[in-house]
């Protein structure tokens, strides 16, 4: 298989405009003859569904929640980047492009990333027109802040709920089209398979989560906007329902999976409090602007936050400030996370042993409690609510947690996967963040894909396809898919083993976290592979899913998702094994500089790993898409 990224020729800044001109258009009168299926209604899905419906296409949209507004985009706190240069501080499309490429450790395509930076400015205009209440200054114009260590203030925000406000904007546009009858919305409905016939995506199979009804939906194109797969780790900052099932089903139907091992671990999360822990809560990394990260110089097992106050300065190790004097506590997410892990590996972790302190005592002394309260009050309250500790009086405890997956379905410049007619948008694709994502860029990418990329690129495919090229749900391809889905559900229900879905998921998560988490070794990864295979075998023999298909059955929903995570986990390990360099969020201990920093290997690994599924229990086949850098010169990151 030859991977064609379809990046247009020509100068970087002209690629997208030229490409848009070269794309075929669908006659306005014919658009209503096309049906597009959109799975997932987060930022990417809602914006795509609304925009396509506005153009005149008929859209069927699906989400597993009871409302499109609840998709996990809603939880993004910090903000959204855009190269508006409203601050006159030297920002530009090129600079946003450059920062994103560099932040991704040179493992993303120049063409895609430049386009992302280019359309970022339109996103803000669109959202404001929809009534998104961004933060404003007294003069009535939009406010910006610097985020995630960026040198310019290009982040637009809506208090600590930027994701919610942007999603409500996209959701309102979606609602308008539902009311118009252009979008048919299916809530509490989960996609369980993609139907492929003649090598093209033709529709999907879904399960109604209330009645259990398995249904076939036929369309001219299918858009997967189904988010990331961080929940393979069981504990992550993702919503409990976030899953890989749609993407994984597509993968098994021929869509290549790009860079599955690229995971972002966020340093400022609330540590695990016990075996009951069901998810991890992220606190905005803006906390690191004023908080100082430290552990005791000598191990103090079980040290509590309230006792930390008594530890004298001389006995504290502010390890980020010590190791990275110029960036200090503001080093990128992966560096901060890794160093917290090292401190804990040395036995100097606090609390349960898997936590470090984030201390605001100095900031409070310097600026006064009022100033700190104004900046972080809601985060402090949230922390206190969850942990019971008061961060005004004692340091917070934090530990890294899985937050975002840069990997995802491989897509070309048109966001089309390797299956014609099947697209992946937002976090579900691998495209724009390389090996590491910058803060405030996830929202940007989701909305860029949905509002400003797919409406153009899908037209080209549909115009070439023709509206009559659609198969009915009676087609054997649909029937086969439907039967497969049904028999898989019956299988899950019939095992009646001794372990609950959550128990098995936890075991998988722990293995992934230990061996394919913040730092990875060949030995560990090989061990993980064996463990995951054994666990997967156990799952299919020993899982206990009660109840029937014909009802709201949350255990059954979870079981189907965990089964897919089991398979994905193995692929992530394969990918991490293959990539024996360190880059971005992927740290291979074998590949580090003498002073312990990540060492990229551009000679061997300047490519996208795109994995092809070859059948059950067959090794997946790796395809490499070489990355070509014509405009920026890859350099090693340094934060010393």
């Amino acid at each position, binding site marked *: 298989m030859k991977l064609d990224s379809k990046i247009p020729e020509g100068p970087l800044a002209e690629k997208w405009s030229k490409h848009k001109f070269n794309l075929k258009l669908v006659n306005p009168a014919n658009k209503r003859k096309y049906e597009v299926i959109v799975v997932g209604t987060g930022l990417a899905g809602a914006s795509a569904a*609304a*925009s396509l419906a*506005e153009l005149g296409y008929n859209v069927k949209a699906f989400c597993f*929640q*009871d*409302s499109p*507004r609840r998709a*996990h985009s809603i*939880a993004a706190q910090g903000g959204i980047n855009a190269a*508006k240069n409203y601050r006159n501080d030297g920002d530009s499309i090129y600079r946003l492009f450059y920062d994103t490429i560099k932040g991704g450790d040179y493992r993303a395509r120049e063409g895609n990333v430049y386009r992302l930076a280019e359309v970022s400015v339109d996103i*803000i205009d*669109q*959202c*404001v*027109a*929809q*009534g998104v*209440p*961004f*933060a*404003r200054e*007294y003069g*009535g*114009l*939009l406010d910006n802040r610097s985020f995630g260590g960026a040198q310019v203030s290009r982040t637009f925000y*809506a208090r600590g*709920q930027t994701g*919610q*406000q942007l999603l409500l904007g996209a959701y*309102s*546009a979606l*609602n308008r089209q*539902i*009311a118009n009858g252009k979008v048919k*919305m299916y809530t509490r409905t989960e996609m369980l398979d993609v139907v492929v016939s003649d090598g093209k995506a033709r529709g999907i199979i879904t399960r109604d989560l209330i009645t259990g009804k398995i249904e076939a939906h036929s369309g001219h194109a299918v858009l997967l906007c189904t988010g990331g797969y961080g929940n393979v780790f069981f504990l992550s900052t993702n919503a*409990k*329902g976030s899953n890989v099932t749609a993407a994984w089903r597509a993968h098994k139907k021929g869509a290549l999976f790009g860079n599955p091992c690229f995971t972002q671990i966020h340093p400022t999360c609330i540590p695990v*409090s*016990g075996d*009951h*822990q*069901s*998810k991890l*809560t*992220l606190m905005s990394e803006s906390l690191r602007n004023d908080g100082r990260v430290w552990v005791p110089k000598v191990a103090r097992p079980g040290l509590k936050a309230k006792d930390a106050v008594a530890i004298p300065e001389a006995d504290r190790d502010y390890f980020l400030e010590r190791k990275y004097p110029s960036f200090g506590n503001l080093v990128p997410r992966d560096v901060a996370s890794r160093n917290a892990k090292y401190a804990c590996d040395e036995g100097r972790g606090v609390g349960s042993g898997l936590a470090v302190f984030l201390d605001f005592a100095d900031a409070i002394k310097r600026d006064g409690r009022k100033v700190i309260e104004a900046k972080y009050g809601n985060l402090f309250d949230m922390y206190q*609510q*969850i*942990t*019971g500790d008061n961060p005004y009086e004692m340091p917070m405890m934090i530990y890294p947690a899985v937050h975002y997956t840069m990997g995802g379905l491989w897509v070309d410049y048109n966001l089309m996967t390797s299956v014609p007619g099947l697209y992946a948008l937002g976090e579900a694709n691998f495209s724009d963040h390389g090996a590491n994502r910058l803060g405030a860029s996830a929202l940007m990418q989701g909305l860029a894909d949905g*509002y*400003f990329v797919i*409406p153009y690129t899908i037209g080209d495919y549909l115009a070439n396809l023709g509206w009559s090229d659609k198969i009915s749900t009676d087609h054997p391809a649909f029937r086969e898919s439907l039967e497969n889905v049904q028999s898989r559900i019956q299988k899950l229900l019939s095992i009646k083993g001794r372990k*609950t879905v*959550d128990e098995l998921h936890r075991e998988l998560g722990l293995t992934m976290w230990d061996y394919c988490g913040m730092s990875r070794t060949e030995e560990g990864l090989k061990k993980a592979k064996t463990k995951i295979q054994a666990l997967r075998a156990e799952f299919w023999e020993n899982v*206990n899913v*009660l109840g029937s298909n014909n*009802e*709201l059955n*949350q*255990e059954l929903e979870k079981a189907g998702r965990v089964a897919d995570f089991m398979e994905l986990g193995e692929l992530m390990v394969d990918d991490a094994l293959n990539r024996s360099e360190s880059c971005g969020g992927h740290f291979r201990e074998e590949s580090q500089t003498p002073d312990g920093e990540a060492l990229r290997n551009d000679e061997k690994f300047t490519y996208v790993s795109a994995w092809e599924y070859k059948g059950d229990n067959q090794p997946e086949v790796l395809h490499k898409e070489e990355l070509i850098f014509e405009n920026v010169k890859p350099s090693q990151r340094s934060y010393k």
Partner: protein
Amino acid sequence: MKITLKVWRQKSKDAKGEFKTYPLDHVSQDMSFLEMFDVLNNDLVRKGEDPVAFDHDCREGICGMCSMYINGRPHGPLQTTTCQLHMRTFKDGETITVEPWRAKAFPIIKDLVVDRTSFERIQQAGGYISVNTGGVPDANEIPIPKIDADKAFDAAACIGCGACVAACKNASAMLFVSAKVSQLALLPQGQPERKTRVENMVAQMDAEDFGACTNTLACEAECPKGISVTNIARMNREYFSAKASSENA
């Protein structure tokens, strides 16, 4: 700590429901309320009993999916979402009664899961600004006084969980609807459709069989996002003036 849970169990929409009692003796103070339910469900599955169905997703207080009526209050004794409530709020040995949201407009699907699509239909009736993607003015061409932007934001903070309906003795949705109406009425972008929006959204709210507001203010007291009843007053004003002056005869 030990607790006793009294949970509403109902097989399906039309089935007859009843309370079931579950003693739990290995509850940690650090558990969230939903994690305590995870533990219960794990125990139930091991015993071969049907686990309790409940809605939840983000578990960080923003998606608005979780919806338990705990000891007589939506989301329990604190003014937060169920997922952010922790067991340290309860006493050792306490009996905790958990019910679903009760409203005619929120029919029960199973156990503690209710159908809130009535909220969806209200929003579809007009909770948007009719702009298509593209072709909009530059974001800074629409200056908005900070005070209005902040008020719009306060209203927009609603997470659509339905606690206001659950708390209201009349199962009225006016806090929710007024938050949506207010957000857009306060912004210049919302002006062109200001009148039809409030007329249509209120009409849909009534069609969904929500009750009428009697200003008991329970909604505001229970709202996990602190949405203010000043929004209800604003919606009333908007509605009366729209009815009096719109051309929609």
